[in-house]
């Protein structure tokens, strides 16, 4: 139904979307998750051209919506959008909000539009509010009206941009219930959301967006239970991290120690583990820096709130091979310390980098 190829979007010098490729088939419910600022809303807004893409192609049922001759209003009409901030017409009643679009844009007879509007309000549980004005409603009620308004235009796909983010937590469930119902009815939907349990329940597929890309996608079981890629794992595992770049043996050890101490304090990491993290950092860097240069080492200390794991990651440029197995050190003290203070050691090669993972005891 929707095919996106090499979609990019830049705001001035800021490249928000780098190279988005995706397909959304009819009947699918796609949840789009990821850290703030990674382009989730921008992606959605490009799909219906609320934001103009900088590059790439978007096809809806084979029609390129970015082509000069594309009938953009007609294509847009097939897509409904529900916003974080509801965006109801404040000067119209709830029912009038639902009928104005069908009457003016779809040329529906007013009687038919009214009947359909009441039916939709019953569907979202707000028939009794038909003649109220939006400012008489709660946030959750406004959002349910917004969804009903969207449905009144008979869209083939609905885009939801954080539909519950502006709501009091007590109202989130009533809106999610409406969206779940639409999913059961087979509506094609793309939903940007921070509600992970909801996304897991309702989605056919999940897009994890990061670094301006769809970093990983798959069924909910994969994304939430067995993510394949590191940043997805970090996001799902609620991992907090600090990073430090080392490019010579003269690096500032005390700057690094200070950052590690501060990070551990902030996340209430026990002193024993904090001590272990410092020791592992110094010893592992010592091993890596003992090899011939040039040196390009990215050190990351990552704490998973979900699993309560503290992990030291060292990604170093160099010839392929586990640095802990290919050292030429004067003694084995560093390796002895590393093997004793790391309860798990992992290695993989990624591109030109050797990537070590040390789980701190």
């Amino acid at each position, binding site marked *: 139904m929707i095919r996106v190829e090499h979609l990019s979007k830049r705001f001035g010098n800021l490249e928000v979307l780098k190279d988005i490729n995706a397909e959304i088939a009819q009947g699918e419910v796609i949840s789009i998750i990821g850290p703030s600022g990674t382009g989730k809303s921008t992606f959605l807004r490009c799909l219906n051209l609320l934001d103009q893409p900088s590059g790439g192609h978007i096809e809806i049922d084979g029609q390129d919506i970015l082509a000069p001759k594309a009938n953009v209003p007609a294509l847009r009409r097939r897509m409904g959008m529900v916003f974080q901030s509801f965006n109801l017409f404040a000067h119209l009643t709830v029912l009038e909000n639902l009928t104005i679009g069908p009457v003016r844009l779809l040329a529906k007879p007013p009687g038919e539009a009214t009947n359909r509007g009441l039916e939709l309000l019953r569907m979202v549980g707000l028939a009794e509010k038909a003649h109220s004005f939006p400012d008489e409603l709660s946030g959750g009620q406004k959002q349910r009206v917004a969804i009903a308004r969207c449905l009144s235009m008979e869209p083939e796909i609905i885009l939801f941009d954080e539909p519950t983010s502006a709501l009091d937590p007590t109202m989130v469930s009533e809106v999610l219930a409406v969206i779940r119902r639409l999913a059961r009815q087979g509506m094609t939907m793309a939903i940007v959301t921070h509600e992970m349990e909801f996304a897991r329940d309702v989605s056919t597929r999940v897009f994890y967006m990061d670094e301006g890309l769809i970093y990983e996608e798959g069924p909910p079981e994969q994304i939430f239970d067995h993510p394949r890629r590191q940043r997805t794992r970090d996001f799902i595992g609620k991992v907090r991290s600090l990073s430090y770049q080392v490019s010579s043996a003269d690096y500032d*050890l*005390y700057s690094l*120690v200070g950052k590690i101490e501060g990070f551990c304090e902030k996340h209430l990491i026990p002193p024993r583990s904090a*001590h272990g993290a*410092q*020791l592992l950092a*110094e*010893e592992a860097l*010592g091993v890596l820096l003992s090899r011939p240069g040039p040196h390009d080492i990215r050190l990351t200390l990552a704490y998973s709130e979900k699993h309560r794991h503290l992990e030291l990651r060292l990604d170093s440029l160099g010839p392929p091979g586990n640095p802990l197995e290919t050292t030429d050190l004067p*003694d084995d*003290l*560093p390796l*002895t*310390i590393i093997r*004793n203070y790391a309860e798990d050691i992992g290695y993989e090669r990624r591109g030109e980098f050797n990537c070590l993972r040390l789980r701190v005891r």
Partner: protein
Amino acid sequence: MDITHSQHGSIRIIALKGRMDAVTAPLFDKAFAEAATPDASDFVIQLDGLEYISSAGLRSILMVAKQVKAKNGRLILTGLTDEVREVFHLSGFHTILRICDTKEAALAELA
């Protein structure tokens, strides 16, 4: 790392406080060199104030121990904190270096 020197008769006492790592280990090397006058053969190194030691620190202590042994002297380490004791144990240093709980016990042994 803070380093203080004292003496008990002919026994040289060096007290360390803070961290002994790749940056500060050379300071210890220098401090020992100053204390190791020709007439000095027995040494006590107090580690009560040492909260952290890495392989660089272990290496420096080992070098000092070898120098003392070469002169037929004696070296005792005292007051190991839990963190330092653990590193000593896993590196096997506790089997090759003499360790006492307190400075007084070390001085009594060297008397």
